[in-house]
């Protein structure tokens, strides 16, 4: 597997889930066990392939694209089939193969109502291709296709296997995201015609000198901003997220938080910033302010929640705020922190959603008042896991959550592109408020732990038979639990991989 020539690896990795989904259609509908096993097999093989690719990746040249495929595709509009992977994409790509595997394993035990494993797992595989594709597509049209491809399976996952208000949530999710992506597409078109290159190639466009005037860049950036900000989601475009998360089945939430939200921030970093540096520079303070509002605001909303899953969903708003703050800093450290925050949030919040889902399986409610505490006494292992992940999520150093948050604040103190001179005071205020957000974050997580974990079980549950962590859950969760610690102790795992790629990215922006 030579990273210079083996373009087939990415194609195979993207095609595997699709082929798997197609083959799954051939399996008999009522043979649930075989369907589930087959899904684990497909995701497992795909993951093994990606893991092998990760091993073969040339880390010495992580700033360059590797495993490249670049062939003509739709000649009529000059679209090309351009795949590749660099240090920025690699961790996200890896994550989008790890989480579906774990989800498939988890589903062998916990299949959401109303069953139908074939459809559910088939959609999940389809989703996987879409997610993974966005991270390796280097053609705007191809990116857009993957970007939209993700919507459909997630729509059905929420709409068919979701909670009581699933219709509302799924339609809202779909329409809101679609709404944003329209503007994004318009911006893509504008860039295509304005650049004079007649190319959709992200690398070419990034390397091009300033496309259009500053005014053009501002407007084009606004379009992309809408598309990506809704996906992230940034305040005030976040309201689809709590609904989608609350209603989605566990696996849907995990993938939504774990990978889907990352597409938005990835889009900012990979497309919006390098192609439109002028627009990004003008927008950066706005992004920063919205990000910090999101941090404070998401935390405040968390404090008001009683539904544990909704709480976790709102916490995503806050955490993605830190990611966006890193982007708003417009310097290497900020981009680094944003990407790290991305990965950390994917791992931690994905794990939190797993836990929330299993909690629902046991208590048949997600209301913290109804659970009423004492979980640490009733099901101690589970309680310990919840504490561990919650503590990671509130940004404790030594666990994954810290580096993204701290890095974003650290980067924002001296934003790039001359922003420090023009908006130095604003950015300092942003750092302070973001730091205050960490206290609120700690507050609601501790409060949640107190509500759920501590104390004695209420009468309702004292006599109930509740399973502690099941073996299949250990299997599905251990990789994430290990990652949470590993990323916290060895931030180099992600920072190191990205370093060169982020430098290259900033150079193309002229910063």
């Amino acid at each position, binding site marked *: 597997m030579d990273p210079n020539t083996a373009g087939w690896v990415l194609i195979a990795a993207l095609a595997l889930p699709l082929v798997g989904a197609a083959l799954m259609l051939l399996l008999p509908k009522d043979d649930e066990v075989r369907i589930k096993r087959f899904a684990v097999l497909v995701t497992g093989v795909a993951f093994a392939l990606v893991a092998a690719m990760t091993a073969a990746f040339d880390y010495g040249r992580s700033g360059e694209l590797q495993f490249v495929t670049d062939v003509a595709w739709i000649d009529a509009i000059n679209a090309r089939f351009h795949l590749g992977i660099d240090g920025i994409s690699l961790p996200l790509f890896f994550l989008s193969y790890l989480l579906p595997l774990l989800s498939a394993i988890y589903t062998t035990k916990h299949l959401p109502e109303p069953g139908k494993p074939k459809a559910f797992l088939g959609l999940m595989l389809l989703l996987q291709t879409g997610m993974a594709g966005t991270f390796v597509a280097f053609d705007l049209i191809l990116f857009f296709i993957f970007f939209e491809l993700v919507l459909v399976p997630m729509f059905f996952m929420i709409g068919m296997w979701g909670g009581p*208000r699933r219709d*509302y949530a799924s339609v809202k999710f779909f329409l809101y995201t679609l709404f944003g992506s329209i503007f994004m597409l318009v911006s893509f078109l504008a860039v295509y015609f304005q650049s004079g290159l007649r190319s959709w190639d992200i690398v070419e466009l990034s390397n091009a000198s300033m496309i259009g005037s500053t005014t053009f860049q501002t407007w084009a950036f606004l379009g992309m901003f809408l598309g990506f900000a809704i996906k992230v989601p940034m305040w005030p475009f976040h309201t689809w997220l709590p*609904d989608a998360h609350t209603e989605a089945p566990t696996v849907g939430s995990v993938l939504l938080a774990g990978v889907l939200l990352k597409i938005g921030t990835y889009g900012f970093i990979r497309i919006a910033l390098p192609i439109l540096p002028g627009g990004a520079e003008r927008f950066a303070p706005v992004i920063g302010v919205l990000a910090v509002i999101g941090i404070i605001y998401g935390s405040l909303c968390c*404090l*008001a*929640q*009683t*539904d544990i899953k*909704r709480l976790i969903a709102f916490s995503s708003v806050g955490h993605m705020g830190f990611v966006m703050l890193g982007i708003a800093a417009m310097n290497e450290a900020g981009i680094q922190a944003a990407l790290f925050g991305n990965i950390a949030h994917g791992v931690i919040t994905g794990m939190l959603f797993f836990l929330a889902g299993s909690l629902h399986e046991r208590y048949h409610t997600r209301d913290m008042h109804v659970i009423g505490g004492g979980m640490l006494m009733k099901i101690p292992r589970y309680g310990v896991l919840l504490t561990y992940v919650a503590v990671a999520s509130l940004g404790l150093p030594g666990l994954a959550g810290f580096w993204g948050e701290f890095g974003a604040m650290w980067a924002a103190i001296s934003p790039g592109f001359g922003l420090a001179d023009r908006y130095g005071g604003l950015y300092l205020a942003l750092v302070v408020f973001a730091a205050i957000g960490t206290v609120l974050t700690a507050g609601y997580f501790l409060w949640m732990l107190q509500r759920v974990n501590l104390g004695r079980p209420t009468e309702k549950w004292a006599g109930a038979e509740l399973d502690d962590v099941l073996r299949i859950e250990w299997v599905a969760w251990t990789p994430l639990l290990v990652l949470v610690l590993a990323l916290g102790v060895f931030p180099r795992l992600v920072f190191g991989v990205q370093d060169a790629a982020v430098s290259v990215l900033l150079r193309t922006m002229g910063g």
Partner: protein
Amino acid sequence: MTGLDVAFLVVALITAAAAIRTVTSTNLVHAALFLAVTLAGIAGVFLVLSADFLALVQLVVYVGAVAVLFLFGLMLTRAPIGREALDSEHRGLALGVSATLFVLLSGLIIAAFGDVRVDVVDGPRTADLGLALFRDWVLPFEVLSMLLLAALVGAIVLSRREDGESGQVEDVTPILLADDPDDPDAGDVALPAGEGAEEVDA
């Protein structure tokens, strides 16, 4: 005004009158019979226009077969008789639309062809028609025959009574794609009011 014109006028008047009666008659059978008259009149028009073969086909197929088919259809469906039973509430709309259409089209036709006269010579002979049909138009002709066959089979399949079919009125469930606009509750479908809004105590 030539003799042909006169002949045409006579036939046309009969045809027009019969056609109007066809769509206004309050008796179903009368309507079908007026249709037969109309169709026959049209055959006359064809004759005047020296399309002899077509006129005959018109008589055989339409007056002979189609009109009879309609009569059978009317009788088999036991349709009631009378204005209310036969005309829907759209008569005003129908009258307005059709009258406007007629006026408009007539105006256009007169404006465009008002002074055009044609010499009605002897039309193509039947033999020529046959040659053209089987030489130049043979493919459409065959397709048409297939269509007729398919229609035949289809008609039989459709009108055959399946075993166990009761003939009762089926329960028709309207497909509701959204909430009924008349439903007073429809306004607040989706606002997640009150959720998580209960007092949070320390």
